[in-house]
């Protein structure tokens, strides 16, 4: 069974369920790919920053709490 979108007409209040068109299915797949790519990049960036932070704290010989005190 094809996936359906729920549409509400704001003028009439009518709610309908309509099957996706082929174009919408293709667009949806492309958007999913783009979203997965963006999430992977964001996660990798966050992981790299966390790793760099840990390494810097180790190099300085202080804890994250102590670093926060210095920066506060």
């Amino acid at each position, binding site marked *: 069974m094809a996936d359906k979108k729920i*549409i509400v007409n704001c003028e009439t209040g009518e709610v309908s369920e309509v099957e*996706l068109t082929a174009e919408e299915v293709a667009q949806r797949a492309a958007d999913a790919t783009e*979203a997965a790519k963006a999430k992977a990049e964001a996660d990798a960036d966050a992981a790299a920053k966390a790793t760099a932070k840990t390494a810097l704290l180790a190099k300085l010989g202080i804890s994250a709490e102590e670093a926060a005190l210095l920066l506060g």
Partner: protein
Amino acid sequence: MPNTYTKIASVSVSSALGAASMDFTSIPATYTDLLVKVSGRELTGVSLLFTMQINGVATNQATRELRGSGAAATSGTNTIATIDQNGSGTTASVFGSADIYISNYASTTTYKSYSIDSASENNGASAYMRLSAGLWSSNSAINQLTFYASSGNIAQYSTATLYGIVKS
């Protein structure tokens, strides 16, 4: 500051099979701004993201985003309007939340700016918050907003409510 909020319409996913999207059409041009409140969850996907289309297209959008997990913060740009919501792998029956504010949506002479404040929650772990500033580069009045999960269907019991705001 606008002081009048009027509920225009709401959508709720009632089927256990979920829905491909939640779509507001024929939005009247009689308000000053629009506010959408979304409570959503992915049925099968794990992207933790919803996407917002304007007038049926995902193009002509540019956003600047700040995202935090509680452990690290990132920022970046995007060409689609993304909204943090709960993925299927997060705590059962927990839904994300989001506010989307669109200023001067009915203008036919200017581009439209919007802000998105959204969060997902996973029982205290791996939760995200995203703040986005966006621009839809079109002079067309906004008369349609579509929300869909970036991966798979939107889960049952997800909701979206559209409000119109008139300047005071």
